[in-house]
């Protein structure tokens, strides 16, 4: 009579706990579990169910092109945005390092004119890779710095311009308008940025989706850089970012050194998530 070997309620709770504790979110988890239970009615092995879930998550994340968009034969412009403290400036430093290793010439625009020592921090990173820095005095208009960055990169025939912006909470209307203006100014001067990165901290909870939505609306985000994945946070919010907003993760930050940057690997990510 007993269906020995089928999944117990406790097995299902364990799978649900895996997803919830990975910051996948309540509603998304409930939907996934319901769908999984439907598909696994005949399944007797919990391991097989987890494998199905693994495949499902990898499918959601997709296998699209994750490389950062470039302008072959011209100036490539990347705009870097996100809330406070997520790792924007550090990620830019790492990108500059990677580009230098490719033999590319890089200009960094220090468009965070607000936070104490923001330009000094970016300059230190620039010196580690030989990138040039364009900066203004503290309190200057960030859009003006971005504008000057474009001018300087064009004048020098540089391969890349990366624009660093101040951390800003998406709830601050004036700051989001400032970001929209930075993007507009760059676009007027050199066309749409080839990549607009949203830097998300892997420890971020459900607020990450609100951030992604707001930044996409303000600046047209094209990809996510997920930082601090060398910690214990799973970064499960990026699943909703992909599923609800179509935003792919393009980069992951794995530490504080110049080499600690890697392309996003959906399989490795889901492996770690379900671990």
């Amino acid at each position: 009579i007993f269906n020995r070997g089928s999944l117990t309620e406790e097995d299902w709770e364990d799978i649900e706990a895996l997803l919830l504790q990975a910051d996948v979110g309540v509603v998304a988890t409930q939907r996934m579990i319901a769908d999984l239970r439907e598909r696994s009615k005949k399944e007797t092995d919990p391991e097989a169910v987890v494998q199905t879930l693994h495949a499902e998550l990898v499918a959601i994340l997709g296998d699209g092109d994750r490389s950062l968009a470039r302008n072959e034969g011209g100036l490539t412009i990347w705009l870097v945005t996100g809330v406070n403290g997520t790792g924007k400036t550090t990620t830019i430093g790492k990108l500059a390092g990677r580009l230098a290793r490719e033999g590319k010439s890089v200009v960094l625009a220090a468009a965070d004119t607000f936070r104490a020592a923001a330009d000094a921090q970016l300059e230190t990173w620039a010196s580690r890779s030989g990138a040039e820095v364009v900066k203004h005095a503290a309190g200057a208009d960030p859009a003006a710095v971005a504008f000057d960055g474009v001018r300087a990169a064009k004048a020098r025939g540089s391969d890349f311009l990366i624009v660093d912006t101040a951390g800003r909470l998406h709830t601050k209307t004036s700051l989001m308008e400032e970001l929209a203006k930075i993007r507009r100014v760059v676009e007027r001067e050199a066309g749409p940025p080839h990549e607009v990165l949203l830097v998300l901290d892997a420890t971020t909870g459900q607020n990450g989706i609100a951030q992604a939505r707001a930044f996409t609306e303000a600046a047209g985000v094209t990809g996510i850089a997920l930082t601090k994945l060398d910690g214990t946070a799973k970064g499960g919010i990026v699943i909703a970012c992909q599923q609800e907003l179509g935003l792919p993760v393009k980069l992951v930050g794995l530490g504080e050194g110049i080499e600690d940057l890697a392309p996003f690997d959906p399989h490795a990510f889901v492996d770690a998530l379900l671990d």
Partner: protein
Amino acid sequence: TLSERLESAFKRLRGRGKLTEDQVNEALKEVRTALLEADVHLNVVREFISRVRERAVGQEVLKSLSPAQQVVKIVHEELVGILGGSAKPLSFSPKPPTVVMIAGLQGSGKTTAAGKLAGWLKRKGKRPILVACDLQRPAAVQQLVLLGEQVGVPVVTRDGMSPVEVAAAGVEEAIRTNRDVVIVDTAGRLHVDEELMQEAADIKRRINPLETLFVADSMTGQDAATVAAAFLERVDFTGTVLTKLDGDARGGAALSIAHISGRPLKFISDGEKLDAFEPFHPDRLASRILG
């Protein structure tokens, strides 16, 4: 809001003056969802729910409240009880200076909080001094020096010394210049970075702070529980500072941290300006977490 969800959940459940088990179980399903959406850690949610269940079943419903409101009242009280907070967020040494050490993950807002705390203490008539012990992040020392200038508080910096030595030098300088509170800013570190966690423990052992403030980002998700447990074990903090509350994260991480560490929330930072800093009041955060 949770209140609205509970009201509609209770429409179908008849009660008569005392909360029934059915009513409570139905309500707790909604509370569980609300807390998980607010980023409270799953295990903390489970423990919290069972605590509320014990208190709620059979409880008298006050004449002035609906059953749903009665449950919300119990939940809110339980949250406030865990979140803690007090009128006196900082203890002071009978023999000055009071040493305060700041620690936490990368980017949580420590350096800014150090500057803000210094400004807050100065406005209270204290003579604080800041010590720049983050020797690893580019321009971290300069950042603290600039913040010190903005609040009018001196900053101790040293070249050619380890963070532990700079911390000790900072306390000596404080004594020498008659400052009564020493605020030691440290580098952001991962709880799984053995070397850096050992360094934090070394700094602490060297300067013997009366207060160690764990600075946590209010938008942190499930990981807050793991991080808090690790920092408690390796560094042992006396209180938490919750930052970036001017965003719209629900802040459930605060409940995880408070529950797991048993340490009170002491201050909140709710803005980028240096005066956006105040002692923690549990009421508002409890409502925010419940949504």
